[in-house]
């Protein structure tokens, strides 16, 4: 098993994964901060390093439409986007899932307008959370690369057949360079295998109709099948994560727990903030506060039972949301985690902080202060708000 230690940005890491996957078709439209993924990949196409048909479209709606058409035809297809681009794909996202197409997307998280902003938050990805796409978040370039390789196997598994997006955090990961390991082409290609489409439309000996009208008679049954595919994805994600670990050294599951076993307070987050959080946890531990961290890797399907089980013994939980559902009830991760913990009998105090909108930095010190304030409030000290905004001028 060959590995090469290199320095790569998140976008470079994702472009490298796409080169190694060597998809039949890539359809995309540029948008900051994901543009570079396709810009780099386009040079691979121009240099003849891949066999991919690259389709530059006139919009993201068209990019997703072209990707759907290509996948229906029987081609392994990928795309990349961010923010408004993902928003413009919105109606097609549901179609990709409903048609059960294992499309693969590199998604670079960025805030949504208005006001216009090109920096990181998770509002774009959260907008697609009920579309039937599997959603995997990455903490750094290494995870972005590893997740994208695993995404192929997860999406194309016969019990799943759902589209999948692997996300990085705009600029924080996408444009920041760090050390990582890349694997040999032959090992990656051996791991992902050859794509065998279930019912390729280009098989003229077996003609099919795709996207037929489906009224009250069978629509419900078809949607029930999509729901089952997402349920099935849980086992497949774990199975692929274990196999990846055996082959490449790093195993992946639904989440990563950091110093959680004896924690009296834990922060829960997605993406790059886990890196910042781990430093804060280390500092808090030095000060004698038993803090831990749970980084959620898989947001769709939401691993509710597993998260509840892992957090069962942690009395104080702080959910950090890098997007606001504008539901007047806190962020989306908070809502999902609360629901997951509801069945649990033990006593938890779960608070929510919405942070980092539009790329606002979250600092190690802010997390330390937040978690120590929660511990102090639990011990009868100054009380703190259940839901609030962290790092905003007020």
């Amino acid at each position, binding site marked *: 098993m060959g590995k090469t230690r290199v320095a790569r940005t998140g976008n470079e890491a994702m472009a490298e994964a796409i080169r190694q996957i060597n998809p039949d078709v890539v359809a995309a439209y540029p948008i900051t901060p994901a543009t570079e993924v396709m810009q780099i990949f386009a040079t691979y196409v121009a240099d003849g390093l891949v066999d991919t048909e690259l389709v530059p479209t006139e919009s993201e709606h068209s990019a997703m439409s072209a990707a759907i058409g290509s996948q229906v035809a029987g081609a392994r297809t990928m795309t990349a986007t961010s923010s408004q681009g993902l928003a413009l794909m919105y109606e097609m996202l549901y179609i990709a899932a*409903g*048609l*059960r*197409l294992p499309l693969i997307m590199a998604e670079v998280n960025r805030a949504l307008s208005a006001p216009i902003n090109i920096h990181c938050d998770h509002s774009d990805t959260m907008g697609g959370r009920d579309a039937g796409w599997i959603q995997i978040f990455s903490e750094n370039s290494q995870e972005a690369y590893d997740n994208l390789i695993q995404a192929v196997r997860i999406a194309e598994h016969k019990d799943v*057949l759902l589209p999948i997006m692997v996300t990085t955090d705009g600029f924080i990961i996408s444009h920041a360079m760090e050390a990582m390991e890349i694997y040999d082409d032959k090992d990656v290609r051996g791991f992902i295998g050859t794509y065998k489409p*279930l*019912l390729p439309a280009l098989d003229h000996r*077996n*003609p*099919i*109709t*795709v*996207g*037929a009208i*489906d009224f009250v*008679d*069978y629509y*419900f*049954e*078809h949607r*029930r*099948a999509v729901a*089952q595919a997402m349920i099935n994805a849980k086992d497949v994600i774990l199975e692929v994560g274990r196999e990846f670990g055996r082959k490449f050294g790093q195993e992946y599951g639904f989440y990563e727990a950091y110093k959680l076993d004896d924690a009296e307070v834990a922060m829960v987050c997605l993406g790059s903030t886990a890196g910042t959080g781990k430093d804060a946890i280390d500092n808090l531990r030095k000060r004698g506060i038993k803090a831990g961290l749970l980084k959620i890797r898989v947001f769709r399907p939401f691993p509710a039972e597993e998260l509840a089980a892992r957090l069962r013994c942690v009395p104080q939980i702080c959910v950090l949301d890098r997007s606001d559902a504008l539901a007047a009830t806190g962020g989306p991760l908070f809502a999902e985690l609360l629901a997951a913990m509801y069945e649990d009998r033990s006593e938890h105090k779960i608070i929510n902080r919405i942070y980092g909108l539009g790329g606002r930095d979250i600092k190690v010190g802010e997390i330390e202060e937040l978690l120590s304030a929660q511990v102090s409030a639990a011990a009868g000290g100054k009380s703190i708000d259940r839901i609030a905004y962290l790092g905003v001028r007020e």
Partner: protein
Amino acid sequence: MKDIANNWKDLPVGGVIDEPGTAINYETGDWRTLRPVHNKEKCINCLACWVYCPDAAIMLKDGKVEGIDLKHCKGCGICAQECPPKVKAIKMVEEADFR
């Protein structure tokens, strides 16, 4: 519409229809509010209706218009519109008038 499955698990993945020519099993004639009535005496068999019908509801026999497939005709009226003005062999009649 005939039952194609008793269980959601038995349906083809992604709502794909995995055999050709199944539209004939899907009777859409009950969407109709206006029924085309074809007059064989007036008809000159130019087949303009057959060409323009967006379904395949104009039935032919030996190259001549035999009648309308009312199980699939949705009553759009294009056949009546395209029938030459001097012929006017198709008339659109309210479905209610047949009840």
